[in-house]
């Protein structure tokens, strides 16, 4: 099981480069290691991953788990165009990570009426430092979760 997962992660890391749909800094993103799951799984299941996690975190106080909205934002927020100071966000235009896809799919989402759409760096949100995130991912893999 572990070997399969490691292989999958390697395939994902070594996959041929594809043109990015949004101005995402691929080099910087890869430097942070693989995402919490395969892109296909995330695209299909990210609401369930986050919904499950939010109840565990809010109700039971479980911190540092695999799926975290703040961690999504920390990695995937992209620079907003036209701003005087460069601000990264997942909202604000058709090229931004969350809003872009949700506009195309015509799915209304209200996560960011309460949650921060702008990354606030290590120490804010669940993602913490890159090392912590990597450590967390490895721990989760060793437990056999996807």
């Amino acid at each position: 099981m572990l070997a399969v997962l490691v292989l999958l992660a390697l395939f994902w890391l070594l996959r041929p480069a594809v043109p990015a749909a949004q101005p995402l800094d691929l080099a910087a993103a890869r430097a942070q290691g693989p995402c919490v799951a395969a892109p296909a799984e995330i695209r299909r299941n990210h609401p369930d991953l986050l919904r499950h996690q939010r109840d565990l975190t809010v109700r039971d106080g479980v911190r540092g788990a695999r799926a975290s909205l703040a961690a999504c934002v920390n990695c995937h927020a992209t620079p907003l165009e036209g701003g005087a100071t460069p601000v990264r966000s997942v909202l604000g235009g058709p090229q931004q990570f969350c809003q872009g896809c949700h506009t195309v799919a015509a799915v209304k989402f209200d996560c960011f009426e309460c949650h921060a759409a702008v990354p606030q760096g290590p120490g804010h949100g669940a993602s913490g430092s890159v090392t912590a995130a990597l450590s967390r991912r490895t721990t989760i893999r060793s437990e056999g979760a996807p």
Partner: protein
Amino acid sequence: MTSNRRAWLTGSAAAALGVAIAPGIRLIEVAQARASGEAASTKVRWGLLIDTSKCDSGCDACVKACSDENGLQVGTGAAIEDRQRPQWIRKVMLTEVKTGRQASAPMMCQHCAEPPCVDVCPTGASFKRADGIVLVDRHACIGCRYCMMACPYKARSFVHEPVTNQRAQVPRGQGCVESCTLCVHRVDRGEHPACVETCAAAGRGAILFGDLNDANSEIARRVRELATQQLRADLGLDPGVRYQGL
């Protein structure tokens, strides 16, 4: 992969160290921070002890610290009346009618063991966490404000306006009721609430935070040895916030 393995090993070593240290030596920060993935425990009961003799009526450092830590002032417009602004902690002046003696104290959610806000909530959004912290699950809050009516301490606020630029660790938005979370995001990291830290930094140290269930903690020792009281103890709600010198 090598760096991953190293990071994981480091994490394991730190976790093992934490386990080894926690039962015997009182390294407070290590003992209080829960491990990643671990749920809050009923063995812990977080509480505050407020020493009114150290609280200055002219000081509102705790109120400002709370506002800053939780992003209460960011993104709120000018259209709203002051009395409708969300406020998680406020300063009150208590006067003894017969003698005229005055005492200043901060008031916030009292984190009751038997919280009436939880009893009346129709959706289960208002809840008490295992470690005694009373919270609002905004995912389930419909903004009916029953809990605001039920709370004898007037601890809760309703967010009337859209909120922007929230703190990443403190999600909050329009249409929900909210109140002091005892800085749950800091407590889970093993830190103390913002008001406690600021009060100590200001040289007053009027607010003490700790685990009431831990007989060796400073707060448990003080509530055992000193005359302290819960506000409206007659209601039988067993608040986790206690006052000294009222």
